[in-house]
């Protein structure tokens, strides 16, 4: 095995990823667990970059780290999670969990032994100016233009539906009206009263 800089980086990121993933499961504090999950995604993104899939790597950071995990953190911080109740019955679930894990390992091993691993040649390296963001964009906006637009319409429907189903204007609720606050001028709020001091 040759150790060039790429493989050293790959092993480093993989180690961090596996360690962080383990910590997600065993961390006591759910906020820590969420932060470890962020680290896991980060390491995975780095591995994508090493593989030359820079678009996937960046999207992983933008979408998962930037949006999904922040949402997770909000939820975890807002919920009052009783840790003791969550840990209850850990031992009784352990055998089932271990059995499932063992099954997963067994399946992976079977794939490894039966798949024609050595027979598939490694893909040809891409030319130096290859840019998979550009390649993806090209396919998405030419060949798949029509489904892409429909997907956009579906997302719009999802937004409309989510807002229409959850937004409810209650009369009498005391919320700020930003536009009125911004339009306020000094003379609406401050009255100068001419108070003459009477001389006795």
């Amino acid at each position: 095995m040759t150790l060039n800089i790429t493989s050293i980086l790959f092993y480093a990121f993989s180690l961090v990823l596996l360690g962080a993933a383990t910590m997600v499961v065993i961390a006591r504090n759910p906020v820590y667990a969420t932060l470890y999950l962020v680290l896991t995604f980060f390491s995975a993104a780095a591995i994508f970059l090493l593989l030359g899939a820079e678009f996937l790597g960046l999207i992983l950071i933008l979408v998962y780290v930037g949006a999904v995990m922040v949402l997770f953190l909000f939820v975890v911080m807002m919920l009052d999670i009783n840790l003791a109740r969550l840990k209850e019955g850990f031992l009784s679930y352990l055998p089932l969990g271990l059995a499932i894990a063992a099954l997963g390992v067994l399946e992976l091993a079977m794939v490894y032994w039966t798949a024609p691993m050595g027979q598939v040649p490694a893909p040809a390296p891409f030319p130096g100016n290859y840019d998979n963001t550009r390649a993806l964009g090209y396919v998405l906006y030419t060949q798949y233009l029509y489904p892409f637009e429909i997907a956009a319409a579906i997302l719009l429907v999802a937004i409309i539906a989510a807002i229409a189903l959850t937004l409810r204007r209650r009369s009498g609720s005391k919320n700020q009206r930003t536009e009125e606050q911004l339009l306020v001028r000094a003379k609406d709020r401050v009255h100068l009263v001419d108070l003459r001091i009477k001389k006795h």
Partner: protein
Amino acid sequence: MTDITAHWTLALPEIWVLSMACVTLLADLFFAAKLRNIAAVLTGLTLVGAAALTFMLMGQRGAAFNGMFIADPFANVTNLFSYLSVFLVVVYSGRYLRERGLYRGEVFVLLLFALLGVMIMASGGNLLTIYLGLELLALSQYALVAMYRDSLVATEAGLKYFVLGALASGLLLYGMSLLYGLTGSLDVQDIAAGLVNVTGSNLVLVFAMVFITAGIAFKLGAAPFHMWLPDVYQGAPTAITLFLASAPKLGAFALIIRLLVDGGYGVMAVWQQIFIVLALASLVVGNVIAIAQGNIKRMLAYSTVGHVGFLSLGVLAGTLNGLASALFYTVVYVLMSLAGFGMILLLTRAGFEAERIDDFKGLAQRKPWYAAMMLIIMFSMAGVPPTVGFYAKLAVFQAVIDAGYVWIAVIGVLLAVIGAFYYLRVVKVMYFDAPEDAAPEIARDDVAAAFMSVNSVALLILGILPGPLMAFCIYALQGVI
């Protein structure tokens, strides 16, 4: 690669509806306070404009966007009937929505997006676009059903519809993935070409067809995949039930044409057998269980299952005449259920839903013309001769007999007779029972009543002169087979 923008004008109606849905959304946001009807009026304008565009492109055949979009008479005809049904939904449901605080721009915008989903399915040339069109339709429908938040049953119906609809999409997708594995293409034309070398006994093919047909049956509401239908039809606000029973059924029929006929006509023997089971089960479930219903929305839901059984008869015949009669039946079903649910809407008031069969007691004395319209609708659903329902049933039976399945036609006729019982019961309640003392006065809704009259009389006129509509359906399907 050919130019991707070639022939994009074929998709003008779709582009128009999408743009106008966005315009309606924004216009409602800014002007709804002053112009309450703006969303409804813009929706009407959208439909008229789309119909004009479709008439302009009528009869053109071609593909756009690398074969993902197909323009042909079938797509045109399906689109035209979908515009008509959404238009009638908007006209019939205005007062009902206003009385329940649901007269909001989002309802109309979602109706337009659902319509767009149907249009995309009707001209889908690729599994990807067909699936996306289906999801666009389904998502809009889930939201519409759950929109009435003050009603517990509506929320429950929305959730049920969402969960079961997602399951159906999963089934359909699984079938599509098997089809892709078998032929190596998502393009419907390529799939049809790829299936030439596949024999009917191929297990993967059988699985693919079973899953795809199950997904379609779910969307159509064919037994044994009809479980969601009665609960959703009953729970949804009646105005939304009216919509669920209209354009989406045309969309589901488009799924049959695009997936099974365009893609799988070469392996018809495989899905034909599945349709025999679906048709017989739907006929039995729909017509027998409807007898026990006291809620008219639920009764019409089971009657829908029965009607789906009849239209499946046309599909399983598989010939041009069979499919044309199935399309004819679908269109007639849409017209009948628009009228049927529209009649329930006419009788509702704020706080009164008019959804029990008992609410129709003595209608003939209170509103003779309404009762006469309901009489025509019920006769048409039952298939009594001068109405179009009779001709629709006759056409599918003829197609099934021509295809050599006399026994299926016999069972169908028997169940049609059983089904006539519960339609005629509504007529009996209207004409021979005394009105309940507590029956509230019927509200005036002249515009809706006028359109209802045209709709009901059309059922009678089409029954006497079914030729043009039938010719239109045959014209739609001529290029497909």
